């Protein structure tokens, strides 16, 4: 199994092994101008990249391109050597947590989490969800309506999905540390370390430098591609 063929051989690869994400010559358009161009990025199993850059340089746009929500102006994104548009395993092997929490205001924390787990094909059983909420420190608030939670608690609820992951998938996180207190940051870092140890990969943005408890990350400055 190689990572350089362009045929969809990903069906043969076991999820435990992880795959490489590659962005080749990526360019992003915003309105009438190019936000960035010529971005080349490679993320191998077990690696973490901290995407940094000044406000407005396109960090969120790059994440959305990598994840497949937007189409690049030029260039392409490859997962295990195949373009993500043609890959039938990419959706399942990738977890995207955007800036917005995707929690429904009118549902309880556990109901919101269960919905996300279900549509992403993850274990949505009560035990799994309880365990996940415990990992992010929300086990006491699992039946609370999301609207009643603080910003930090909602962020933790959004990140609880990460605790449902047990395989070497790709995590794309937009400002995961946002609104979290020190304890919350510690919990997220623990999840990241575990994930990288089992061969998963992480691509995240953060406007502040990841703290001491965070796993080692390669810095990628998007600002130099503007």
């Amino acid at each position: 199994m190689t990572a350089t063929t362009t045929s969809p051989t990903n069906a043969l690869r076991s999820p435990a092994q992880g795959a490489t994400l590659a962005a080749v010559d990526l360019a992003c358009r915003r309105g009438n101008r190019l936000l960035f161009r010529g971005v080349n990025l490679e993320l191998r199993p077990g690696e973490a990249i901290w995407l940094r850059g000044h406000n407005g340089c396109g960090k969120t746009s790059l994440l959305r391109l990598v994840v497949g929500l937007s189409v690049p102006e030029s260039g392409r994104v490859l997962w295990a050597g195949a373009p993500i548009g043609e890959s039938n395993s990419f959706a399942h092997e990738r977890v995207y947590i955007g800036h917005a929490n995707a929690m429904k205001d009118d549902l309880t924390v556990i109901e919101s989490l269960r919905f996300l787990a279900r549509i992403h094909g993850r274990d949505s059983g009560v035990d799994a969800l309880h365990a996940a909420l415990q990992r992010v420190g929300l086990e006491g608030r699992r039946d609370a309506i999301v609207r009643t939670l603080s910003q930090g608690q909602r962020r933790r609820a959004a990140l609880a999905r990460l605790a449902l992951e047990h395989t070497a998938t790709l995590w794309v996180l937009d400002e995961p540390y946002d609104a979290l207190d020190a304890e919350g940051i510690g919990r997220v870092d623990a999840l990241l370390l575990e994930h990288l140890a089992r061969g998963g990969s992480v691509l995240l943005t953060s406007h502040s430098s990841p703290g001491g408890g965070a796993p080692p990350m390669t810095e990628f400055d998007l600002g130099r591609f503007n």
Partner: protein
Amino acid sequence: MKGTLRWTTFAAPSRFYALAGALNPWLWALAVLLALAGLYVGFLVAPTDATQGDSYRIIFIHVPAAWMSMVLYVAMAFWAAVGWMLNARMASMLARALAPTGALFTFLALWTGSFWGKPAWGTWWVWDARLTSELILLFLYLGYIALVSSIDDVVRGDKAGAVLAIVGVINVPIIYFSVRWWNTLHQGATISMTAAPKMAHTMLLAMLLMTLAFWAYAFAVVFTRAQALALERERDTDWVRALATKR
């Protein structure tokens, strides 16, 4: 090789701009001449109708306008689809440029249709099946224009417009059929030519001239509008800057 080159040659906004600029004066001239000829034949040369007298002459504007309104809608949907599927900016701009002219012809068809029906029915509006379908077509045009102008991001606007236009084109036959059904069920009014089975040659000539005139006019206006759109969208490119500094 040369064959493939020609298909996409004018997909580049700069080349389209140049082509349109070269053709427009001729198109305008053609439109004016054909219109004058058509109106002359239609209003002065063609014979008086046996049953409708002279008021029927409005059909020389009404029928070509109605045809244009339908043709332009299909063209609009076609170019919007091409622009979306082939990622061709100029095609999307062409679709946007077609819409206002299509709406104008639809309105013209409705207005002249009203004039046509007045002597026959005594009212300014009749729910004739074809007129009603034209009215709905006007709504479809207005909907498209409203949608693409509400979306700030031009690429999203182009694509959303394409979806709407394609769905509209599929719906037009359904709408037309249902309106005809509705009209016959309720014994609605019909405006039509009750002239002799064989239309006088001059009448056909007038129709043809007016249709061609409208075609030429439509090309000229749509090209001009598309040129304006190209200038606006491509304002940061070299060829537009060169044009601006030349003046």
